[in-house]
């Protein structure tokens, strides 16, 4: 039972990262109907920046906010410079462009920071490990019933829940949130109501990338370092989370992310022979497949009904 509880908390903390990536995917999808394939790599780019800020002796929390700022700029610039002009020609082309951006950003990270994991004292890093938002020394844990509940894991979970609450307020209680929901629901009528839809879309992409950036920083912190492959699997789990929760439901994205994290951790913990560490990704695939077969709109998504 105690071991189960530990796996649950660990699963939820990894799931928090998936939730953040899924949130970014959902915000973009709701606003524009595009699947941003580069969501994970945008987050990685920001995670590298936060490493860099650490090298410059900027404390981790301000560095995280700066990293989210980098994400916001990157996301909004992507919408203005790439997505907007191209989606006028073909929405499908946008998907290809985000795949291109995925490759480009990964190349860019390598060109700037090299292909070794960072921090790495061999390349002159001043930091011993990637900056963590919460205390993560070996003794920073509770040990109820002999299982280990690490402060860092709980802190991450709380951080994501607080962020979700703030986003809920943003979407439902502010004028900007109303304009985002209006644009997602009916872009042309939003224009006729006097909403600057272009600005809303730009801000949505920025917000999505900023949230993703936090995911990248948290993931690198859990991992202890940042490297070029860090976000590949996380992106796949994040997509599974968004599919599970429903691609148009931010709340669903968070719950989906936590569930995927827990399922993944329980599966690899209790079925080490079948799932183990190597087959973990298969869990995401199975979840996506099952959701698409049983409830294509996801747990909390709205099924689109078209009037003909």
């Amino acid at each position: 039972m105690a071991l189960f509880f530990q796996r649950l908390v660990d699963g939820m903390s990894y799931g928090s990262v998936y939730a953040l990536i899924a949130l970014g995917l959902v915000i973009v999808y709701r606003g524009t109907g595009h699947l941003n394939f580069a969501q994970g790599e945008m987050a990685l780019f920001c995670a590298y920046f936060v490493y860099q800020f650490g090298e410059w002796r900027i404390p981790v929390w301000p560095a995280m906010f700066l990293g989210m700022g980098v994400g916001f700029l990157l996301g909004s610039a992507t919408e203005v410079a790439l997505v907007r002009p191209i989606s006028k020609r073909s929405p499908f082309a946008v998907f290809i462009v985000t795949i291109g951006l995925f490759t480009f950003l990964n190349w860019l990270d390598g060109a700037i920071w090299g292909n070794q994991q960072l921090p790495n004292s061999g390349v002159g890093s001043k930091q011993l490990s990637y900056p963590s938002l919460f205390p993560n020394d070996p003794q920073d844990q509770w040990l109820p019933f002999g299982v280990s509940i690490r402060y860092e894991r709980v802190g991450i979970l709380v951080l994501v829940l607080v962020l979700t609450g703030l986003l809920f307020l943003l979407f439902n209680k502010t004028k900007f949130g109303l304009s985002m929901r209006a644009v997602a629901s009916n872009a042309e009528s939003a224009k006729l109501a006097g909403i600057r839809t272009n600005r809303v879309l730009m801000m949505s992409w920025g917000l999505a990338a900023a949230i993703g950036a936090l995911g990248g920083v948290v993931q690198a912190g859990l991992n202890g370092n940042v490297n070029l492959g860090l976000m590949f699997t996380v992106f796949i789990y994040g997509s599974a989370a968004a599919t599970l929760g429903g691609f148009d439901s931010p709340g669903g994205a968070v719950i989906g992310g936590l569930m995927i994290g827990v399922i993944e951790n329980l599966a690899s913990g209790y079925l080490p022979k079948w799932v183990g560490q190597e087959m973990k990704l298969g869990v995401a695939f199975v979840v996506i497949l099952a959701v698409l077969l049983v409830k294509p709109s996801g747990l909390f998504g709205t099924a689109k009904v078209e009037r003909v």
Partner: protein
Amino acid sequence: MTLLKATDLTAGYGPVTVLQQLDLEVQEGEFVVMLGANGAGKTTTMRAISGLISRHGHVEFEGVDITKASPDAIVRAGIAQVPQGRGTFPELSVEDNLYTGAFVRSGADSVRDDIARWLEVFPRLAERRHQRAGSLSGGEQQMLAIARALMSRPKLLLCDEPSLGLAPLITQELFAVLEGLHRDEGLSVLLVEQNANLAMHIASRVYLLETGRIVASGSAAELSADDSIRKAYLGF
């Protein structure tokens, strides 16, 4: 006073030109109806005035050139459009639809007062205040779309075929509300319709539109008096 004045208005979609050098105007306090068959360019006229599609020529509102203005600037200037078909936000509640209509306004109190007012005018919306707009019937959605447009406190209301797909009784009810707003509050309206009978009844002035050109204009009485026009366009 001339509220809206379009001269030489040419607009279309990509390489296709739909409107050919259209001239049209709406005086303050007028209820202008534009009649035309399918494909005559009624919706294109509305979209061109609202700035949703690129246009050439000259559009003036209250003496100010708005030819190059963006859709949101045009709403701010005082033109609101009820678009054809579903002009609502189906995923948003009735109340949020109305709040969205007030997007260009400030002053939370007066916005709340207006919401209360339109819910009184359209009691069926009041009952469904917290329901998603997508769950409303066609007639209720059209009422909501009109209330949404009125929430911006427009000086000119553009209505694109409000009768489309609605039962005759519901259509009559809608027109009665529009007529009331026009008569009691002096709201200026430009309404396009295929449904000639109802629209002619309340029109101060009528335009007949055919393949992107205005082929006749005048008061409802004048147009109905002309036999050839009556037979060709009005169908009675």
